[in-house]
């Protein structure tokens, strides 16, 4: 780690050292370059945003972090060590939880069961123990259930605990997805457009939950968002991408006044 000192935010939260670092990440699909030589870090306890216009490569970046894509070049450093190429489920087990842009929930299962799957990364009991519902498996189940209920309470979805997810409206599904990710007690929480397709009220709710999660559990959050206003209010530091390149990086204020960023968002005469 280059720098472990961290900084203090305007509202007085202590931000720790580097938790994850992307070093010169490049991602190609055949001839298309989705991400070009991007580096940035995520510090412990901060809300880090990645923004950019459509097709800038934000989601690709998130997929690199969560292990769904393997970068063509560059390194991912996590907790002070270089991360070897991994499958997504292995990354998840290392404490990286995520949500998806187009909601990926288990539609046929209840809200409670969905959130319980979030605890799979904490499962230690063997298959035999689980099959027989014996010893370790039973204790674990109780403990997991307790943690899950706390998350459900926290996100105010108690009243739909037993509802199959397929029947819920969009805004609530988003919240259930957040609950599932949160149940994993992740070191880093990745949110892929958590506010996409929401109305103003739902957006405000979601913003509040994201800030509360960060505050209450100290969870490091990395989110992708489209809506500039929301991002600026939520995040401590922002990475701006355009056409697969990084064009800005800094606090919301710095980024807001960056000429390249203004150009990318408003367009400039070429």
């Amino acid at each position, binding site marked *: 780690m280059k720098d472990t000192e961290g900084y203090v935010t305007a509202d007085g939260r202590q931000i720790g050292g580097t938790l994850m670092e992307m070093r010169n990440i490049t991602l190609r699909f055949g001839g298309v370059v989705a991400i070009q030589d991007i580096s940035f870090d995520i510090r412990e306890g901060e809300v880090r945003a990645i923004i950019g216009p459509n097709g800038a490569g934000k989601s690709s970046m998130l997929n690199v972090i969560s292990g769904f894509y393997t970068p063509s070049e560059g390194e991912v450093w996590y907790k002070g060590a270089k991360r070897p190429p991994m499958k*997504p489920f292995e990354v998840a087990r290392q404490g990286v939880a995520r949500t*998806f842009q187009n909601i990926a929930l*288990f539609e046929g*299962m209840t809200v409670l069961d*969905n959130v319980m*799957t979030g*605890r799979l990364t904490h499962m230690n009991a063997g*298959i035999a123990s689980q*099959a027989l519902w014996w010893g370790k498996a039973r204790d674990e189940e109780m403990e997991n259930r307790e943690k899950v209920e706390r998350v459900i309470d926290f996100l105010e979805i108690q009243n739909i605990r037993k509802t199959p997810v397929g029947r819920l409206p969009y805004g609530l599904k988003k919240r259930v997805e957040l609950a599932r990710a949160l149940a*994993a007690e992740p070191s880093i929480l990745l949110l892929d457009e958590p506010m996409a397709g929401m109305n103003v009220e739902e957006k405000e709710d979601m913003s509040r939950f994201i800030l509360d999660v960060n505050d209450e559990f100290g969870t490091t959050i990395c989110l992708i968002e489209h809506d500039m206003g929301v991002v600026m209010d939520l995040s401590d530091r922002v990475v701006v991408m355009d056409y697969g390149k990084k064009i800005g990086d800094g606090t919301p204020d710095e980024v807001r006044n960056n000429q390249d960023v203004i150009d990318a968002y408003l367009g400039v005469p070429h």
Partner: protein
Amino acid sequence: MLNDIFIAPFVDMFTAPDFLMQVLWEGLVSGILYALIALGFVLIFRSSRIFNFAQGIMVVFAALTLVGLFAMGIPAWISVGLTLVVMFVLAVAIERVVLRPLVGQPDIILFMATIGITLFLIGFGETIFGGENKVMITEELGIPTGDTVLEPFGGLLILQHLDITVVVVATLLVLGLLAFLNYTQMGRAIRALGDDHQAALSVGISLQTIWVLVWFIAGIIALVTGIAWGARAGVSFALEVIAYKALPVLMLGGLESITGAIVGGLMIGILEKLFEIYWGQPLLGGNTETWFAFVLALIVLLFRPQGLFGERIIERV
């Protein structure tokens, strides 16, 4: 004619209730076995969207392995344990060699692959164990073979001990599976994987582990079915046919539904027996059991294409 269809059968049922009970009992016994096989299909379908054509041959293969090992002089219960090991190795092999390279391919290709597995197991099984019929080692396994005669309503009801054992064991297995799927993290992972692969990966579920697990469970089910059916009909490749009896069960119950598999299996087992005895034999010359289930399933499909318990597919426009 109308009398024969609508009145006479019911009169028979009421005048000889002991015989009716006998018919129902026998229907229940086959029904619970159908349910068990159907459960094997449903489990694999739910976790991987593969319709496992090989379920039938797995029954034969498990039974042949068990009998074969015993013939080599290995004690009966150790043979059962070894057969389970073989079924586990088979599950691992299928995952490695067949499923893993085909991840993400269209469903029909995976379905074809299971036909491939079927043909391979037929050939492989015949090479190792030979094609001739064998006798299930019922007594050596300590399965009781006598019968109990009850006299309800002053009549006669014969319960084969073998059948009672089958019903008890199958019921326990079904209940155990249900509990495993619904109340353990592993079970949740299996259900989750069937719903959404990406989401499953994001919460740390390993496709490979779960696939091996469900194919192994399917293998256990195959062994139990193989023992139960083999004890009644002998162990031969013809046993494979009973897996096809699970097809109408699946049509009736829906491919995704575990409840559907159980209810559908029991329904078909009981209804086909009733139909055979009270309508089939007197009116159609018997042997209706081979096709009745399919006709019943087709009729249900006319009204509920997703089966009785299947997920209704609603397309949002």
